[in-house]
């Protein structure tokens, strides 16, 4: 059986559904294909943050501002509350060296327009009374927000469907053929052939495999993140919290942060966020273990040990589940967004690593702009997949 569409999106995660939504809103007839079920990939195994404080001044931070504004308009457009919340965030600082590095980083972010500051221990404890005594200060930004990824994905799908978008699940792509510069012929597991002039590769962690089908270089590597989920508990503080360790490592490769062997080998740095379900999501590891997305006892133990060092009060709280997902990571920490040179009509929108939820709306909107030939946005040159084209 053959089906025709204006645009075929490969990948039904939050990025693929956002692309599908914005393209169908602009009148394109869109099909979205996914190899698995609803949110089977990284979009269903992540935390829920629209996080500003982790970002260096530059394109990712700039796009996060725009994405937050889009999320606010999507609350009306998609209906439902999407689990949107604006609790703010704090990055916890444990020693003088971390404090100096974070003060410098916060100053850079402020000069870029981010509302963030370093607060002293007294102010910090007002917002987070249960923190361990060894935390000496923290940052605070009121900007850090969150959404429920499942609600957003379902919202994109419902609204997109009302514009004529169609989602096909449990039907993976097995090959992409093209005669000359004619339509792409995308074949799937169940034998259907999808015929289309435009293909969007939004396969996230698996986008490299889709790229390979048309000889496009898409250098995305899976970076596993394990997360532990608690039972429903009352709030332990006003904001979501992170450890400064990860940021310090990212900002200053010369600084050796204080981590034990387990934490170092797992790439562990604490993120403790309150979900819309009144549970806490606690992460996360950063592991290069191929496409293995199992959770491990070592990972769960290390995450909980680190958490209890920071918030000892949580000792009595039950954890009810662990999950793991594969972040789509790229060599330079930026997504791939744009058309591949020499493969007219083939676009990639993937490689968001830990920013997929934060950047989903802006990614879909910009991608739709490119497909519809709007005036070129020069800022996006640095996201072009052609930066990785083999010469």
């Amino acid at each position, binding site marked *: 059986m053959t089906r025709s569409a204006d645009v075929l999106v490969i990948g039904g995660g939050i990025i693929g559904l956002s692309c599908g939504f914005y393209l169908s809103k602009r009148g394109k007839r869109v099909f979205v294909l996914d190899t698995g*079920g*609803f949110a089977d990939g990284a979009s269903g195994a992540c935390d829920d943050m629209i996080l500003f404080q982790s970002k260096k001044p530059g394109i990712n931070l700039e796009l996060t501002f725009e994405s937050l504004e889009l999320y606010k308009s999507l609350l009306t457009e998609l209906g439902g509350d999407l689990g949107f919340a604006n609790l703010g965030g704090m990055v916890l600082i444990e020693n003088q060296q971390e404090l100096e590095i974070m003060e410098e980083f916060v100053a850079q972010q402020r000069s870029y327009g981010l509302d963030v500051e370093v607060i002293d221990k007294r102010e910090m404890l007002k917002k987070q009374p249960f923190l361990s005594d060894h935390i000496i200060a923290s940052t605070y930004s009121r900007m850090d927000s969150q959404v429920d990824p499942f609600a957003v994905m379902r919202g994109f799908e419902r609204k997109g469907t009302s514009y004529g978008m169609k989602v096909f699940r449990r039907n993976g792509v097995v090959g992409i053929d093209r005669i000359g510069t004619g339509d792409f012929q995308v074949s799937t597991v169940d034998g259907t052939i999808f015929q289309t002039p435009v293909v969007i590769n939004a396969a996230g962690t698996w986008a490299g495999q889709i790229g390979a089908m048309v000889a496009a270089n898409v250098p995305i590597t899976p970076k596993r993140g394990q997360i532990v989920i608690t039972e429903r508990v009352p709030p332990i503080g006003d904001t979501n919290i992170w450890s400064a360790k990860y940021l310090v490592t990212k900002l200053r490769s010369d600084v050796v942060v204080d981590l034990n062997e387990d934490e170092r080998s797992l790439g562990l740095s604490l993120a403790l966020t309150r979900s819309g*379900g009144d549970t806490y999501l606690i992460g996360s590891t950063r592991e290069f273990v191929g496409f293995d997305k*199992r959770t491990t006892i070592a990972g769960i*133990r290390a995450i*909980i040990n680190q958490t209890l060092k920071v918030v000892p009060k949580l000792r009595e709280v039950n*954890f009810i589940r662990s999950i793991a997902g594969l972040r789509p990571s790229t060599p330079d920490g930026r997504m791939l967004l744009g058309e591949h040179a020499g493969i007219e009509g083939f676009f990639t929108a993937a490689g968001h690593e830990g920013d997929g939820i934060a950047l989903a709306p802006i990614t879909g909107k910009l991608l739709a702009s490119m497909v519809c030939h709007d005036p070129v946005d020069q800022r996006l040159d640095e996201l072009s997949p052609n930066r990785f084209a083999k010469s």
Partner: protein
Amino acid sequence: MTDDKDMFICRCEEVTLREIEQAIDEGFVTVTDIKRVTRAGMGLCQGRTCTKTIARIISQRTGKPLDEVLPKSYRSPVRPQKMQAVENEEFNDAKNS
């Protein structure tokens, strides 16, 4: 007025039969899909009570066999554990699947 459709299928997260049937009709046809779109099975008991019920509802409504709609894997922990449990020696010997 309440009727059978207002019955809670997932008691932990208070998800009704009506919500589950709606999701099935929108094309979410596995227990895992239903969990992610309705939160059924995400609560304290982690679906130990409702997984089989939901699987049967999907199966009856779609005609799919049960083994196609049931979850393919389970993740630790198998029952709620206090966080301090990781400090016990035995925790290291736990097997993960």
